[in-house]
């Protein structure tokens, strides 16, 4: 498969929102978003978060699988890294690769905290990215899926400390606070 080169840029949550407003989903448009964690490396294994070198290593790894792409985002405690371009399909969940964006959160949330410390910072960045993408693409946050919901495989990703209902609620709350509700998916229906 021809490799879709990665974007390799990192953004704060605010910068990411601005970046996404410059994108156009003409050739491919996702129907929902799948949330992952990296598990290994964990937060403890990346004390300074992800670096450009780490992202380059990840690109080499994903490319080495003979895939055309990887996940769309890697989110750490300070930045949102755009990996596979958000405007094309990626590779992350076998049931949903053709129809969903994939967001990887740095950390092992089977063991590491997702409600405090660096885990909370990752969570906040992920919620920010999810709110941006749901708003711009007109996606209902209720449609967000966790990788472990993929029926083709059985695994922990993104870890038991990631509770879907809490994440969905936070995304909805952030969308309302940013847009006063005028970007909620229900407004795009019909």
């Amino acid at each position: 498969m021809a490799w879709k080169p990665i974007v390799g840029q990192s953004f704060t949550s605010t910068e990411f929102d601005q970046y996404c407003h410059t994108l156009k989903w003409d050739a491919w448009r996702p129907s929902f978003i799948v949330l992952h964690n990296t598990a290994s490396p964990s937060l403890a294994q990346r004390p300074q978060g992800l670096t450009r070198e780490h992202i380059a290593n990840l690109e080499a790894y994903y490319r080495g699988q003979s895939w055309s792409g990887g996940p769309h985002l890697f989110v750490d405690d300070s930045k949102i890294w755009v990996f596979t371009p958000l405007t094309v399909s990626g590779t992350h969940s076998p049931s949903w690769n053709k129809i969903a964006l994939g967001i990887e959160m740095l950390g092992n949330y089977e063991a590491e905290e997702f409600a405090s410390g660096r885990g909370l910072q990752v969570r906040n960045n992920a919620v920010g990215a999810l709110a941006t993408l749901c708003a711009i693409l007109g996606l209902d946050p209720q449609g967000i899926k966790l990788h472990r919901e993929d029926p083709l495989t059985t695994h922990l990703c993104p870890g038991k400390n990631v509770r879907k209902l809490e994440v969905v609620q936070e995304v909805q709350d952030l969308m309302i606070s940013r847009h006063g509700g005028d970007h909620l998916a229900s407004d795009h229906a019909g």
Partner: protein
Amino acid sequence: MAAGLLACACSSEQRAGPPAPTAGEASPPSDAWSREALDVQPEMALLKRRTPVTTGYTPATTAWTPLPGEIEAGQAPSPGALLMGVITSQHWSDILGDAVWEQTTRVLVDDSGVATGVVLQWGLMDDAVAGRDFRVSMRRTGDTWKVDGVERRFHCRRGVSASGQCQ
């Protein structure tokens, strides 16, 4: 379930340097018609070799566990035909060409009317799971073969958790 099948525990050890051959992950023994070779997924050893240490990933394989749910397999005149029937009824092949690259099937029959079939799927388009295997235990009753039990395991790209699942 044939005696001994459930005792197979597959590798979950951490990788350090060149991988040591382990059950389910090593290159096939020269005697392909053997129980040792039956469920070997050679791609797993290659995945270990080509996974850079810099990624922090430690590819490993989960243990065999019973497949949840009912199996509608019926019976067949041979273990090979029965295995194909299970594959069809379970829709295991439906993801070929879409979410998985390849599928290998093998059947080993012993002299006591017991057979074991395996379905080894590799190249899952999943960032955590590289492959999934199914193991079907079969028994001859008169002129027909029936399913005794089905197990599955996963080959994990990042490693296996303490609870035995892909991370």
